[in-house]
């Protein structure tokens, strides 16, 4: 579109993050054309580089979360290293970090310091539990945020234990929230010329995902105390995971029209107009009976294809529970580009999830490569800070800069 290769063409991002949540923020910005400088602590860099799976020492996990970034690997505790970071912060539009709260200020890059040298900068901190409150200083990983948010307790069967989410949903979503807030802060800067500080947490992110449970508990004065309900979706009925012929199948009929339609399909049309089943709330109470009726009908069907065909024809939401392997190879996810095939110099071609944001003015797939450790030390310092080749060699000799020899 016009002069721009993508929305963030020309924006400079200083990315001082590791693991998943922080790198997701900056990867999403890179997918929109921003120039992202990933700062990695010498000598090891982002610990994700050492995590599974590998080919010739290259981590596909690191590649997924760091495509489209440049790598600058330095000793952030040395005076020269700090000087470089402050100089880069002067030139950047956005600074993203995800250390445990307090750590970034100890490195000299707290918002006070950064906004003094660059009042236009937008600084976004991502943490497990946020920058304030009793839990703030705790280290945070995905599952811990999910626990404190009451999300894990909602996963699993009532009679059994809780079950963790099937992915680091909160990490990725906290990344999404970080990127979203940065976009709006940049929009605000267009009107005011001012930057600001953004405080995003994994815990807030998971808690925000309670579509039903929080209001139900609070508005009922505690009369409804949501907990895990196994295969039933909490709060709606009928909705949940059922036993198909070959695999598990999701069936939902939560509106009045869908419920009537489902009753016809399972051969009990009279229930569609039965006042005892009239609303989702009443059906939630009668879910054991409804489950029996639906399961009974499913058991009479010849196969999953027929089940899905009949329900789809009746406009009832239905889906087979696909494994990750099946989802990756599903024609819809392929055709739509939900699965993106990327190319890496070491790993070759492999698949990662695409950004969930689609812009009509810009193509989805851009060939972004993840950097080797310290790959762009020279480029960044010459281009942004005007360092000479001699100075670069000196910094490398002093162990302030580090790079992987590939």
């Amino acid at each position: 579109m016009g002069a721009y290769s993508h929305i963030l063409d020309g924006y400079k991002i200083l990315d001082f993050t590791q693991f998943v949540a922080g790198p997701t923020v900056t990867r999403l910005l890179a997918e929109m054309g921003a120039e992202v400088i990933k700062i990695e602590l010498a000598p090891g860099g982002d610990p994700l580089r050492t995590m599974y799976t590998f080919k010739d020492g290259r981590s596909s996990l690191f590649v997924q979360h760091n495509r489209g970034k440049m790598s600058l690997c330095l000793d952030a505790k040395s005076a020269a290293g700090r000087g470089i970071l402050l100089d880069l912060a002067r030139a950047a539009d956005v600074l993203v970090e995800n250390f445990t709260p307090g750590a970034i200020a100890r490195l000299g890059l707290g918002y006070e310091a950064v906004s003094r040298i660059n009042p236009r900068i937008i600084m976004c901190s991502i943490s497990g539990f946020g920058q304030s409150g009793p839990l703030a200083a705790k280290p945070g990983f995905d599952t811990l945020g999910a626990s404190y948010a009451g999300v894990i307790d909602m996963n699993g069967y009532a009679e059994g234990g809780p079950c963790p989410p099937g992915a680091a949903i909160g990490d990725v979503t906290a990344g999404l929230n970080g990127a979203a807030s940065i976009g709006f802060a940049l929009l605000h800067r267009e009107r005011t010329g001012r930057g600001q500080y953004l405080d995003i947490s994994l815990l807030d992110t998971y808690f925000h995902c309670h579509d039903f449970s929080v209001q139900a508990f609070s508005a009922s004065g505690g009369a409804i105390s949501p907990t895990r309900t196994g295969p039933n979706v909490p709060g709606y009925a009928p909705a949940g995971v059922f036993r198909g012929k070959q695999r598990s199948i999701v069936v939902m009929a939560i509106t009045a029209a869908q419920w009537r339609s489902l009753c016809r399909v399972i051969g009990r049309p009279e229930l569609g107009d039965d006042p005892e089943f009239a609303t989702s709330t009443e059906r939630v109470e009668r879910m054991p009976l409804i489950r029996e009726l639906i399961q009974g009908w499913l058991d009479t069907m010849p196969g999953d294809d027929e089940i899905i065909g009949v329900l789809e024809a009746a406009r009832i939401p239905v889906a087979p529970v696909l494994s990750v392997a099946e989802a990756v190879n599903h024609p819809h996810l392929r055709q739509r580009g939900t699965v993106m095939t990327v190319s890496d110099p070491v790993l070759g071609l492999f698949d990662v999830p695409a950004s969930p944001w689609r812009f009509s003015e810009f193509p989805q797939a851009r060939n972004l490569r993840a950097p080797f450790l310290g790959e762009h030390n020279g480029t960044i310092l010459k281009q942004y800070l005007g360092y000479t080749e001699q100075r670069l060699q000196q910094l490398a000799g002093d162990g302030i800069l580090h790079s992987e020899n590939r």
Partner: protein
Amino acid sequence: MGPFRHVMEGYRVVDFTQFVAGPVAGRILAEMGAEVIKIEIAPRGDGSRVFAAFKDNRSAFFVQHNRGKKSLCVDPKKPAGLEIIKGLIARADVFIENFTPGVIGRMGLGYEAVRAINPRVVMCSLSSFGQDGPLALAPGFDPSGAAYSGMIDMQGEPDGPPVGMGGAVGDTNAGVSAAAAIGFALLHRERTGTGQYLDIALVDAYFHCHDRSVHIYSGSKGAIVPRRSGNHTPFYCPAGIFKGKDRYLVITAVTQAQWAGVCRAMGRPELAADPRYDTNEKRAKGGVVEMVERWLQSLPGDDEAMRLLEREHVPVCPVLSVAEAINHPHLRQRGTVATIQDPVYGTMDVPASPVRFTQFPPLDLRAPMLGEHNAEILQNYLGYTRERIRELEAQGVIHRDNR
């Protein structure tokens, strides 16, 4: 900060959405100060107005997802109704809809038509499976996207059935994705003056959450097929959900230093150097989960376990119920739980927006009664007279809940 009350002050959003994903997108924009006009189809309005919990027929579910919006309840199938919606889009910055793909086009409000009315508008469609591809026309709710993305299959015991999601995580996530894409599209409009069309899907939002499974399957050329593994994974140990004395605990000790911390907490420091347990994989196969659970059971209570593990800097936390999370001092102090005012409920709690700006405090937003703002919107935005508004009401073009 400065002359603006919040980031989106002065922006106008036409929100033609229902249930969860679409309303979340509009609500996040409202939380940033945008003026959000919710179009509800006469006479019933948003299908989520009938979802529990209730007080005097007011759905708290609806309140949570529609705070800060104005309601216009109109029949889009009547020409006068469609004209109203088009008039509002002509004056809007953003137009959001979440009907099954194709429906909005048949109403005469597809992107081509919308762009012809207002080339600066950012139009965002949310759907279960996206606007194209073989599944596009299928209706769907949150679990449909979770199923087709391979997410549900990853939850549960390896030899048991899969476990559904504990909430509409994907709907919320798709709503956040839509809001984010809208923000960036508006930023782009600042440079170019033109709007664009955004196509956000639940299945994309869920699939995007696979932090590890997709590249593991693909990078290993299918040699490793990720499957659900209950409370513990074969890749990291001890890391997962453990049965404590009083409740379940999450312990995450994936580095060698954290494992050494677990050993010291258990009073068995010598295990840290034991070659039988020196990698995550060996620990996963070697009975470490059982060892940790036996230790937890030997303690007087979980508080003691947390104290011993935290002293060794091992990440640990209790699995809280929703009720406990809502009342936890951290979530309260930080405002992760937002206590809001509603004319029917009085005060009630909802999740606060996770998109936080330190320069702007949260706004006080109320969810509308059905059609509450019909007259205000038609007068202020479209210049309709009182007489014309009464006429439209009599013809059933617009509708409102009389309270």
